[in-house]
């Protein structure tokens, strides 16, 4: 039998294919294999080592941004790739094609589709989908497959139910047979050590690497610790996993022979030995990794990938945490090197690791729970599906019911904002939310806060992040908000000519004050200082107005400093909206005589809104009893009262409204509402 394997780009696609191929080779030693991949991707490094012939075609990921050049290049590459794939298919003539997804398999699948239409190929196709949310390619070629194997039930929504089978995730056979002593022996680790293994997925996660190295000084002090750090070989313009980690270690002074407590690996061929030797594993939340960890029955700290489709990594992680098999460590937004970045806090990582290693009993419970996570015998199931494919037997169709839309949140940021507001309203305030849910919502706020994506009104995801920080009263993030507010890096000169100012635009800074700060329950001096500075120096009028409003509403100690700042602002302010807010704030917190004399200078001001505000402020001062009424006794005559501002009163409308109220009150909202109210209800 001839098997063609394709799929790749990341480990989540390559390793299942290899696992399936290994198992088939074990059961049918005479089968022939061919792996089709893309140059310089993971499969080019891993597959030849496993002893399978590898051929290359050209392919590109589907362009995520809308650009004509991007689409043109993609189309061209695809055409070339499809043509070479057709040659490969016609020469190799496979009986079964096993496709695990990823853009790498696009040429082969499309080529097969064409050949099947032409009647030139009679291979059977087994499509494997390792994620809860199918990738773009698998979604597109689902119709070509004769059988579709799913790791998660939820993915079945996108495929034809008659051809779907739930098979779970096929772990490489080596993982099923790990043993602690043998693994430790092979790695040369004494039996009394507590081993912590950190892996960032096949591409090496930058945040995990950096957080681990930064926490090493603390972890080094734990007795008996042994850290195995697999950095991965990720290398692109911004981040080179191996080199950056080496530099970071040098800066911390961890050089020389550290193999008694810390070992670094670029890439580990026999990862099962590391897992087998481990007492605790730090990893990402991909389906493959988590299955491998639970097959080995080890406790884990999971750092979900923020950009996963439908946030499925966080979902997987929370499921395992609920079973007690793992702990979730979310990435946080933080102000690093002049920008907002999403990182793992090294202190929290070190805290969590030392807490777990200090209590072997807890570790033991987590290990048992991890082992007990329900799994299927995926390799058996998959091979069963493939052989029934070959023979031509049709399986019974599945009936699956899908829970309505995972209890997750919408992915569109504005929809998510509305959903969060609704949740908070339902729970009666932030304090009423379940702590796990609150921490997950705050994690989403962090993701948005750290996002660099600007698109759509209003102003992209960072704006939504700022609003969420306020809504969720996420006071730990206030320092990030303050840094955003104070950031004075200028934007590009083109934008500055058109009227822009800083890298973080005016409306974002205004939301930082109005929503990020206003909704916090407690304030402190650093916030006050930042607001004073914003009032004095920010170039955008809405920010100054919001700062003045906040200063008036919140701070009652150290009023002199604020009062002086407000008075200074009044003298030099050009924008009427800001002046109005400053006058209101002075009315709320003003004390000294300087306030009254400043107000007096407004009595004859041409703008009636200023005079109106000044009069209201004086009334407030009288209410608060900081002003002696006799002082303003004559001022009433001195204020110019000519004003073009008026509010019309329509007597007919007023009496109609009162009539409607009386009628509804009398009928108690009975069956017949007044016509206008009915129309309004219908209009909703």
């Amino acid at each position, binding site marked *: 039998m001839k098997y063609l394997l394709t799929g790749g780009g990341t480990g989540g696609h390559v390793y299942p294919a290899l696992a399936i191929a290994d198992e088939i080779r074990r059961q049918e030693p005479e089968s022939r294999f061919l792996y089709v991949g893309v140059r310089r991707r993971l499969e080019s490094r891993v597959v030849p080592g496993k002893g399978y012939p590898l051929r290359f075609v050209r392919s590109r990921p589907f362009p995520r941004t809308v650009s004509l050049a991007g689409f043109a290049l993609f189309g061209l590459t695809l055409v070339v790739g499809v043509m070479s794939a057709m040659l490969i298919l016609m020469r190799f003539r496979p009986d079964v094609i096993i496709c695990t997804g990823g853009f790498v398999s696009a040429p082969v699948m499309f080529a097969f589709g064409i050949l099947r239409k032409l009647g030139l190929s009679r291979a059977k196709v087994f499509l494997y989908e390792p994620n809860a949310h199918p990738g773009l390619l698998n979604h597109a070629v689902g119709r070509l497959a004769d059988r579709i194997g799913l790791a998660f039930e939820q993915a079945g929504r996108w495929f034809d139910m008659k051809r779907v089978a739930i098979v779970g995730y096929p772990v490489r056979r080596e993982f099923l047979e790990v043993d602690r002593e043998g693994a430790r022996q092979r790695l040369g680790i004494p039996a009394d050590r507590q081993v912590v293994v950190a892996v960032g997925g096949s591409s090496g996660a930058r945040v995990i690497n950096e957080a681990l190295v930064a926490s090493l000084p603390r972890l080094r002090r734990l007795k008996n610790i042994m850290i195995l750090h697999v950095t991965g070989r990720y290398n692109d313009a911004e981040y080179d996993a191996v080199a950056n980690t080496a530099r970071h270690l040098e800066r911390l002074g961890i050089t020389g022979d550290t193999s008694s407590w810390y070992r670094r690996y670029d890439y580990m061929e026999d990862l099962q030995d590391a897992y087998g030797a481990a007492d605790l594993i730090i990893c990402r939340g991909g389906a493959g990794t988590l299955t491998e960890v639970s097959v080995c029955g080890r406790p884990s700290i999971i750092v979900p990938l923020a950009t996963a489709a439908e946030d499925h990594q966080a979902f997987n992680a929370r499921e395992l945490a609920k079973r007690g098999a793992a702990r979730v460590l979310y990435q946080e937004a933080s102000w690093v090197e002049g920008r907002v970045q999403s990182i793992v806090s090294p202190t929290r990582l070190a805290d969590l690791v030392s807490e777990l290693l200090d209590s072997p009993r807890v570790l033991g419970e987590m290990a048992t729970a991890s082992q007990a996570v329900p799994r299927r015998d995926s390799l058996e199931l998959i091979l069963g599906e493939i052989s029934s494919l070959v023979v031509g037997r049709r399986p019974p169709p599945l009936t699956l019911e899908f829970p309505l839309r995972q209890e997750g949140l919408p992915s569109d940021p504005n929809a998510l904002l509305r959903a969060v507001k609704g949740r908070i309203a339902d729970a009666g305030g932030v304090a009423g939310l379940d702590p796990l849910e609150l921490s997950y919502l705050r994690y989403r706020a962090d993701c948005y806060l750290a996002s660099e994506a600007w698109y759509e*009104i*209003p*102003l992209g995801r960072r704006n939504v992040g700022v609003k969420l920080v306020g809504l969720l009263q996420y006071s730990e993030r206030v320092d990030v908000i303050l840094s955003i507010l104070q950031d004075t890096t200028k934007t590009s000169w083109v*934008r500055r000519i*058109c*009227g*822009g*100012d800083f890298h973080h*635009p*005016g*409306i*974002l800074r205004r939301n930082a004050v109005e929503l990020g700060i206003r909704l916090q329950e407690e304030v402190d001096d650093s916030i006050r200082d930042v607001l004073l500075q914003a009032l004095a120096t920010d170039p*955008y009028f*809405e920010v100054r107005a919001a700062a003045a409003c906040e200063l008036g509403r919140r701070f009652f100690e150290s009023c002199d400093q604020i009062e002086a700042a407000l008075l200074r602002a009044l003298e030099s302010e050009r924008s*009427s*909206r800001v002046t109005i807010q400053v006058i209101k704030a002075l009315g709320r917190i003003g004390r000294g005589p300087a306030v009254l004399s400043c107000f007096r200078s407004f009595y004859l001001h041409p*703008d*009636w*809104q200023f005079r109106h505000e000044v009069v209201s402020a004086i009334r407030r001062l009288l209410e608060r009893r900081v002003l002696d009424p006799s002082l303003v006794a004559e001022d009433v005559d001195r204020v110019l009262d000519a004003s*073009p*501002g*008026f*509010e*019309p*009163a*329509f007597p007919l*409308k*007023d009496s*109609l*409204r009162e*009539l*409607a*109220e009386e009628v*509804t009150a009398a009928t108690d909202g009975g069956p017949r*509402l*007044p016509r*206008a*109210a009915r*129309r*309004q209800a*219908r*209009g*909703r």
Partner: protein
Amino acid sequence: MLYYIGNHLRDTVEAMSYLRLLDSISFRAIGGAMTSLMFIILFGGRIILYFYRTGQRDASRGYAHFPGGDHQSKTYGGGLLVTGILLGILLWCQLHNRFVLLCLAAVVWFAVLGYIDDYLKMRHGSSDRGLSESAKLILQFAYGLAFAVVFVFEELSPLPPGLATQLYIPFLKTPIVDLSWGYIPFIIFTVIAIANSVNIADGIDGLAVVPVSFVIGVYGVFAYVSSHARISDFLIFPFVPGVGEVAVICSIVFGACLGFLWFNSYPANVIMGDTGSMALGGLIGTVVVLVKQEFLFLIVGGIFVGEAVSVLIQEKLGIKRLGRRFFYSAPIHHHYQSRGLADTKIVIRFWIVAGILALCGLATLKIR
């Protein structure tokens, strides 16, 4: 229609030769204006009540849930305005004239477009759920394309051959360039821009009606000048026979606008809505192109240009690209409202500015 009746009667009956008066453009212009004006004033009250009874009002704020009493419920009276205009045109214009047909097409198309938008708003009870912006743009584009094609093609065009694609600029006697095919996108852009800017300007009671009437009056004068052989020769304008009907239409619209102002002034019990403002905007766009004084609109219609530009700056440049506001609110009349100016003052000040700009526009008749 009266034109045809008059001609027929004059030819058949000797004693009615005084009906020759109906040939004169100025007579028909004044007659048309008076007709539409009196029709709207006399019958407007009843028609508005009819609209109110059939529920054509913005009922998003019911009485039972009203926090404050400062908002009138608005009746959409755009149909009244359009009816007045159509009545005047049908009675007093030469209906076989291609200019008249083009203007009629503009009024009807844009009025229907505006009516669909208003209807959707009324149905959903809120002013956010009218036609989507792209749907409106597509429909306007369709009209613009049809109109431009008819205008530019020599066989269909009402203009004398060779004139249709010349580009004229105020203050210059001769056309600066002949655009040929390029004139079509130019026409489409002009019509869409003008129709939308009139729509934007209709924000406060009476704000759009008077500037529209000023603009249409000035264009009526320009149309009359172009149609009169001796005057156009004297003032060095291109002579376009038949465009005098556009002058008649302009004065009919002038009269209709004044009649509408009778009811629409502050505080208004009837507003134009999208029906009226789209119809007027589309008609002005068409007239501007027919009289070949497109750039004059930048002067005479400066109010509308300013409103549209303020919306563009605030929304497209400010909020979407730079993340900041330039005005307190857009369009510019909302900005003045939030600065504390009373509605009536804003409206009358805009009228004054529109009047001054119209006079400047008229001055370009002589300053060449």
